[in-house]
C-alpha cells in the first residue's frame, strides 16, 4: 500500500500526541481553537443546539474550555490506546469533528482503506454517543448504504461519561470489519447476502474495497486543513517526513539527555531518602 498521507497525518501516526496540542492549541498566537458550532453544520451531526455551559450561570464563560479539554483528553486517550491501523485527527475547525482513516489488514475487508469522520455532540460527554460516518459507504451490514454512517449506537446504547471514550468507538469501527454482525442491519442487503450467499457478499465487499481505494487520492470530502488526504508517493514530499518519523523513534535518549540539565535527583531508586544515591554522581 504505497499510499501516503500528508505529512501532517504521517506525523500523527508516528507521534500524534505532539501534533495534538500545537496544532489544536496555538496559544502562542493567543487564539482559541474553534469549537463545534461552525464546523458542525457541515454535516449537521448533532442537532443539539446550545452549549450546556450557558446554563451554568456564573461560570458559563469557562464552558468552552472544559469542552475543549475534554475532547483533547479524549484524543490523548486515543493516542495512548495505539489502536492498530486507525488514525484520527481532530479537524482544524472544530474539536468536535475528527477525521480518521482505518486500514483493514486481514479478513473479508483486507486491504481496505476507509476514511471516515467522527462527529461528537457538543454537549459531550453528557450527550449521545459520537457518530462515525465513512466518506464512502462501505458495503457492510452495519453501514448505512446512503449516508455511510456506522451503527455505533448499538454498541453504546447509553453514553456514559467516565466509562465510554471515543477510542472505544474507533475500536468498535475496526472490530466491525472482522466480526460481521447482521442483526438489525442498516444495510439489509449486505446482511442478507452475508447470511445467504457469502460468496456474493465477499465479491461485493471486494468491489466496495476497490471502490474506496480508487477514491483514495480524492480531495477530502470536507475542506479543512487537517483533513486526511492521500497522495501518491512523492519522494520530494514524503521522504523527509518519513525520515523524521524514524529519527523521532531514536530520539528518546537524546531527549533524555537534554532534560537532565534541568532536573535534579540524588535519590536512590527504591529509596525515599534524600541524597541516598551511593556514589552521588552529581555530575550526571
Amino acid at each position, binding site marked *: 500500500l504505497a499510499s501516503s498521507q500528508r505529512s501532517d497525518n504521517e506525523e500523527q501516526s508516528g*507521534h500524534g*500526541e505532539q501534533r*495534538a*496540542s500545537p496544532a489544536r*492549541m496555538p*496559544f*502562542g498566537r*493567543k*487564539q*482559541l481553537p*474553534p*469549537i463545534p*458550532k*461552525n464546523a458542525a453544520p457541515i454535516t449537521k451531526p448533532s442537532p443539539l443546539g446550545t*452549549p450546556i*455551559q*450557558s446554563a451554568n*450561570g*456564573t*461560570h*458559563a*464563560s*469557562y*464552558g*468552552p*474550555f*472544559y469542552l475543549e*479539554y*475534554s475532547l*483533547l*483528553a*479524549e484524543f*490523548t*486517550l486515543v*493516542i*495512548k490506546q495505539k489502536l492498530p491501523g486507525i488514525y484520527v485527527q481532530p479537524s482544524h475547525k472544530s474539536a468536535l469533528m475528527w477525521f480518521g482513516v482505518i486500514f483493514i489488514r486481514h479478513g473479508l475487508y483486507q486491504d481496505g482503506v476507509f476514511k471516515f469522520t467522527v462527529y461528537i455532540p457538543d454537549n459531550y*460527554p453528557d450527550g449521545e454517543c459520537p457518530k462515525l460516518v465513512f466518506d464512502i459507504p462501505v458495503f457492510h451490514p452495519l453501514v448505512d448504504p446512503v449516508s455511510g454512517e456506522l451503527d455505533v449506537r448499538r454498541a453504546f446504547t447509553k453514553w456514559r*461519561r467516565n466509562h465510554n*471514550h471515543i477510542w472505544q468507538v474507533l475500536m468498535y469501527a475496526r472490530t466491525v470489519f472482522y466480526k460481521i454482525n447482521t442483526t438489525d442491519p442498516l444495510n439489509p442487503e449486505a446482511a442478507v447476502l452475508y447470511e445467504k450467499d457469502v460468496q456474493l457478499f465477499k465479491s461485493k465487499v471486494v468491489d466496495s474495497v476497490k471502490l474506496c481505494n480508487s477514491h483514495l487520492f480524492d480531495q477530502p470530502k470536507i475542506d479543512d486543513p487537517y483533513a486526511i488526504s492521500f497522495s501518491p508517493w512523492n519522494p520530494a514530499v514524503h521522504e523527509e517526513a518519513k525520515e523524521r518519523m524514524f529519527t523521532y523513534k531514536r530520539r528518546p535518549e537524546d*531527549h533524555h539527555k537534554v*532534560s*537532565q540539565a*534541568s*532536573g*535534579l*535527583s*540524588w*535519590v*536512590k531508586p*527504591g*529509596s*525515599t*531518602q*534524600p*541524597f*541516598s544515591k551511593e556514589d*552521588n554522581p*552529581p*555530575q*550526571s
Partner: protein
Amino acid sequence: MMASVVANGNRDGQSLVLKGVDPETCMIVFKNHWAQVVKILEKHDPLRSSSALPSLSVINLTASSSGSSRFGPIPGDEASAVQNYVEHMLFLLMEEESGQAGAMGPILEFVVMENVMERLFVWSLRREFTDDMKLEQLKMYEMLVGQARQPLLHHKPILRPLMMLLSSCSSTTAPAVEAELVLLLNQLCYVLAKDPSILELFFHTSEDQGATNFLIFSLLIPFIHREGTVGQQARDALLLIMSLSAENERVAKHIAENTFFCPVLATGLSGLYSSLPTKLEVPNEEWHCLHKEDWLQMPSLIQFLNSLEFCNAVIQVAHPDIRDQLVSYIYNGFLVPVLAPALHKLTLEEVMTTTAYLDLFLRSVTEPALLQTFLSFILLHRHENVHILDTLVSRINTPFQLGIVSLALFRTLIGLYCEDVMLQLVLRYLIPCNHMMLSQRRVVRERDCYSASAAKILALTPSCCSPDRSPPPLRQLDSILFSKGGETPDNSGNTEEKKSFSEENDGSGNSCTIGSEIYLDVSYLHYLYDARLSINSCIRACQVWSAPYDGEDPPPEKYQPGVLEEPGLTSRQPQMALKKAQRPFALQAGSCVPPGTDPLPVNQLELEWDDSYDACPVQTADASAERGPPQPPPAEPPKHIQEMRRTARMLVKGSYIEENDFQDDVMVYDLIAKKDSGDVERTSKPSGSQTEETKPGSAEVPLKNGLNLTVPSPAMVDNSSNSLDAKANGQTDCNANLQNTTAVELGDDLLAQYEELIRTLDHEAGGKPVKADGEVKKPITPVEVVVVEEDEMDFASFSAETPEPEKLHSPFGTINRFRSGSATKNNSLPFTGPFISVLLSRLENMLSNSLHVNLLLTGILAQLAAYPQPLLRSFLLNTNLVFQPTVRSLYQVLAIVKNQIEELAASKKDFTELITAAQHWLMAREPSFIETDKSGGSSGSNHQEGGRILKNSPPPKPKAISLERTEVFATVLFTEFLKELAAIAQEHSILSYIPMEE
C-alpha cells in the same frame, strides 16, 4: 626598564619591521648584541673578574642602588646598555620561527646553549632586585611566553630562570608586581592548557628549585579571592589548571594533597561572607529577594559571588578528587560553621538577610555537585538539633520581611525540580497515602477527563469577581482583556453583547467561535498557555527522578510511617568523609535518650518539635524512643491539631474568651519555668533562631515596629521566651483543657474533641467553645478578632495582619517542625507535612496578607501544582479525591477564603468598586513587575502573561486605592489564582502521561 620598552615597542608594530629581515642576519645581530651584553655582565661578575672594583669609582647613577649590591653599584650607562641590547635580542627571539620539523630556530638554540635567560636573570639579581626589576623581568617573560612563535617553555634554560623569577616574586606585595605576576601566570596557564606536555617540566623544574611543586599553581592561590582584574585573571588561570586536572591524575593529586587550594577556596568564602552586611536595608515592603540590581550595589556581595561562581566553575571542570574535596570543605568550612549560625542569629533582620543570601546563593550555583552540597546542608544538616529545613519552613509563617524572604527562598527551592527537595518538603508525607481514604488510592493516578476539578475550582470565583455578574466597572476590565483582539475598551463596555466579541474575533481569524451567548474570559487562555509551559518543563525536568510518585511507586505500604524513617540514617550521611564527622552528632542527639520514657504522649508529640531548643529529658526520651531514626516520616498529629485549631478559630471568630487565654498562659509559664530550669542555654539559642517568628507574638508593640524590621535585640530575648510560651501554649493547652493526665489517650481524645468542637461550633456552641477557644486560638484570636471586626483602616494596617500570623503561626510553625521529628503515634494520623500546612495556613490568611506575600504564595502553590507526580497533583488539584477528615486540602482552604470574601463583599458596599480600583492598580504595575520578576526567578510568569494583556490597554483612571487594603488585592489575586490553578488542572488532564511515554 628594558622589558617594558620592549613590550611597548613591539605593540607598536616593530615586529613588522623585522619581518622582511632574513634569519641569518637576525642571528648575527643577536649574537653581536649578546657579545656586548656578556662583556658588561662579565665585567661585573664578582666571581670572574676583578674588574668589578674599578667600577666602584664610577659615579653611581642608579638612584635606588644605594647599599643594594654587594659588589658595588653597576654604572647606569652599562645597565641601560644591557637593557637596550636585551630589548632587541628579545624581539629577535620572539619573532623567530621555529626551524624545520619543529626544531629550534637558530636564535633559540643559541639562547639555550648559552643559557642566556638565566644569565640575564642573575644579572638582574646582581643589580638591586627591586620591585621595578621584578616587574621588568616579569614583563619580559610575559611577552616571550605570550608572543613567541615557537615553543620556548620546553627548554630548561628558559624555564628555569622563569621559575626562579616566579618564586622570587612569591612574597611580593607591590600591586604592580602582583598584577604583572598574575598576568604572566595566567599566560603560562594558557600555554599549559594548550600543551599539557609542558606540565611535566613545570613539576620537575620546581623540584630542581626546591620550591613547592607546581609553583605556578601555588602562586595563584593567594589571588583566588582578590577583587578586580587581578583576581579574575588568577581565577581564570586556576580554572585552566582545574580542567587540566580532570585529565591529569598527577595534577589532581598534587592539588588535592599538597596544596591548600580547596581549603583556601572554602574558607575564603567564609571570610568574604563575614564581610557582607549583616543587615540589608530593605528598600520596600515588596522586596523579597536579592535581584541583580540589588547586589550590584554591594561590592562585598559581588566579591563573594565571584568566588562562589569560581567554586562553581572549579567543581564543574576539576578532577573528581578536587571536586569532592572542595565540596566537602565548603560544607564543613562554610555552610556548617558560618551559614548555619548566621541563619540563627538573634535579630529578625539578620536572619532575614542571611535567608536572602542563601536564596541568592542557591540561584547563583549551577553545578549539581555544589547545589547538592547546599541542598544537603538545608535538608539534612541540624543546627542545634533542628534541621535547617524545618527552621526555614517554620519561618514562612513569620510576619515582616522574614516571612516574605523565606517564601522567596522556597520558591527558589521548589523551582529546582529537585527530587530530594520535593521529597523532604512534600512527597514523603504523601507517599503512604494516608492522607486520603483507602478507597481513593486508585484515584491518584486518574486523570480529570472532563475538567471537573477545574470547574470546581473556578466555581469558587467570588460572586463579586465573576465576569457575568459584575457591575459595569468590572466588566470594563474584562473588556480590556478582550481589547487585545483589537477592540477598543468602549466596545467592550457593552459587554451585554458578547456576540460582538466573537464575531470580531472571527473576522480577524483568531476566532473563538464559542457560541454567541458566551462571555469568554480571554485571560484564561494565557493561564492555560503558561500552565502548559510550566507543566512541560516540569515533566521534562522530573524525568531524572527516581520514581513516579504515583501512589504505587514508591509503594505506600512499604513506607507507612515509621518505616519511612529507617533508611534515613544512612542516607542522611553525606557522601563526603568530612561530612560524616557530623553525622554522629545528629544521631546521638536522637538516639542517646533512653527509650520508653514517655509519660505524656500528647505532649511529646507536640513538644518534639521543641527538641530544637529543648534538651528536656522528656522530650528527648520520646523522640528517641519513637523515632529510632531521627528522620521522621510523615508526621501527622500536630498538623492535624493545628488545622483543627484553625478551623475552630475561624468558626469561633469573635468569640474569643480572655479567661481561657489567660489560663493557658499561666500554664505555659509554668511549663516554661520547668523547662528553663532544665537548660537555659539551649532555650535561648534555639529560640533565637525561631524567635523571629514568635517574637512578634510576644508583644504587639514590637510588631508594629517590626515592620521596619528594627526590633531591638533585647526585645528579641524577651520574645524568645515568649516564643517558647507560644509553643508551649500550643502543647500545654491541650492538656490543660482536656485536663487529661493520661498520656496516650490524650491525643485521640483531643482530636475527637476538636472534631466535635468544630461541628458544634458551626452551629454556635455553648460550653464547648470555651474549651476550644482555650486550646485553639488563645494566642491568635484576640488580635484577629479585633482586626476583623475593626473598621477597614485597622484591617488594612500591617499590624493587624502581622500579629495574627505571628501568634497563630509561631506555635504552628514550631509544631510543624516536630512533625517531621515526631514519630510514633503521629504515624497513624494523616499529615501532609509542615510545608504544605504552612503554605495553606498562610493562604487561608490571604485576605490579610500583603499583596507581595500573596503573589509569592500563589506562585509557589502554582509551581507545586505544576509538578506532574500524581501524588502531588492529586493532592493539590483533584477536587474529587476524598481525603481523611483531618487533612486539609488546597480546595478546602480556597473555599474558606472564598467565603471570607463573600462575607466581606456582602458587608462592604464599595467592595466591588475597590476591586476594580485594585485591578487597575495591578495592571498599571505590571510592566515593572515583569522586569523584576524576570531577573528574580521562576514564578510569576503567569502574572506576567496576564499582565501583558492587561498592559496593552490604558487603564482608565480609577480611584486611588491603598495597598493596605490587603483584602481587596487579595480578592483580585484570589480570583486570578483560581484561574491559574484551574488552567494547570486542565493542562494536566491532557498532558499528564503523554510526555512520560516519550
